[in-house]
């Protein structure tokens, strides 16, 4: 069982390109997902029944199908459709856009749930206390509820981001070259597939372990211990 790691040093530039793609997908997915997710959460909590229902439908749809299916949908159906409408007749490099869109919309549904749970976890008593002091609904949300909700949400939101970082490897199914795909391709070409797969795994392991360790520390700082 002899390992040949010699392919790694030379291929670092290519791997780094792949990592950039991975990071771009993760970043866009998190940012757009957060924005859209917040909207969805607020819709769900709003007294307007249509908005509430639409938001619930969105979340249900995206949470009941595999991410692989979502990627297929966007890559083979929806993105070509929209692009075909906006730029008829052009052939564009669609995979990256499809991936960004798919991940953003997919993550939004998960973020929506986290945010909604976070807001709901701040009790009605807190809300009423704010109102009793003379603040209006919006002020209470902004000054009392959201700050508390955010403290509870942030660790979960960050954890979800780490999950997204790992899920980005699924762009394999639409033949997009992210970090893992590059590692796999190099391994296939040079003939050291096992070593490249293990190397990629180790890189993810290190990054994610460090990241989740940081999230845990953050969680500890944010959690206010009960007064004895």
């Amino acid at each position, binding site marked *: 069982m002899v390992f040949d790691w010699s392919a790694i040093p030379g291929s670092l530039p290519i791997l780094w390109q792949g990592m950039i793609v991975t990071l771009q997908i993760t970043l866009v997915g998190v940012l757009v997902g957060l924005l859209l997710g917040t909207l969805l959460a607020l819709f769900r909590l709003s007294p307007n029944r249509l908005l509430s229902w639409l938001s619930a439908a969105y979340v249900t749809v995206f949470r009941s199908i*595999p991410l692989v299916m979502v990627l*297929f949908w966007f890559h083979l159906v929806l993105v070509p459709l929209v692009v075909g409408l906006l730029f008829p007749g052009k052939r564009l490099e669609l995979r990256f856009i499809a991936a960004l869109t798919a991940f953003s919309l997919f993550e939004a549904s998960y973020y929506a749930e986290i945010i909604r749970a976070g807001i709901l976890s701040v009790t009605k008593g807190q809300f009423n206390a704010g109102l009793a002091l003379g603040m209006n609904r919006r002020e209470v949300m902004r000054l009392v509820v959201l700050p508390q909700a955010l403290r509870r949400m942030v660790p979960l939101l960050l954890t979800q981001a780490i999950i997204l970082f790992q899920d980005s490897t699924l762009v*394999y199914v639409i033949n997009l070259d992210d970090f*893992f795909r590059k590692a796999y391709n190099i391994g296939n070409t040079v003939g050291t597939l096992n070593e490249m*797969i293990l190397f990629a*795994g180790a890189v993810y*392991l290190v990054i*994610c372990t460090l990241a989740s360790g940081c999230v845990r520390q953050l969680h500890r700082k944010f959690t206010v211990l009960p007064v004895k």
Partner: protein
Amino acid sequence: MYPSLLIPLVAVSASAAHGFYLSPFTFHLSPLTTLAAFDFSVFLRPSPESALNNLSYLLVGLGWSLLLALASWVVAFVVGSVVGVMRTLPGRILPFIGACYVELFRNVPLLVQLFIWFFVIPDMTPILGDWFKQQVPPIWQEFIAGTACLGLFTAARIAEQVRAGIGSLGPGQLGAGLALGLKGRQVYLLVLLPVAYRILIPTLTSEFLNLIKNTAVASTIGYVELAQRSASMAETTSRVYEAFAAGTLLYAVLNLLVMFFARALERFTALPGFLGGRK
């Protein structure tokens, strides 16, 4: 806000209008042309991939997905329970091993783990590995690798839930069991786990649903499950919408079925007066 809702509406109506101008006999793989004329008879036409018609082709794919999910669930539940219990035990070694397991399997992407199980491990294992690569038919190679990967991956998540479930019972139950003279193992099996599992039914259900979704990842090593079959049907029949709509619908139906069974299980195991059971 509202523009994001308008986009799909505009897309659908524009392409519908566009489609009416085109001949329904266009074979171009363009969503624009196929949207206007949904052709559901495509499901009854024979699939080039197998001896069945397209709909059955998809249904068989669903069956394979479910098979992988069930096999993985057995592995995940057993290993996850063991690791979860390990993390609640006193002492330092066992909880630490449990923690290491969870960290390892949660911080490597699922796809990478799958590739390790399918490519690396058979290569590295001396005798069994060679037998695996040469004697076992490909579909079962993929199945075994998929089960091992998904099973151990999901086990890490179940371990955390079991740990939380037992923790939520409080130290009093453990103390009460021990005070009666029961040994530690008996307290876990007879007192803690029966109640913890009941509390965990909703969480475990959602974990099983996740597992079903994760079976789609097995398509990357060639396992012919539902997501892959939807894509391949879309390619062979040029009917992208119908193919993916069917695939999506099948996943949604499976989802509903699982939730239905989970609710029935919850009612069946409910304790009178407790956790919403009969009074």
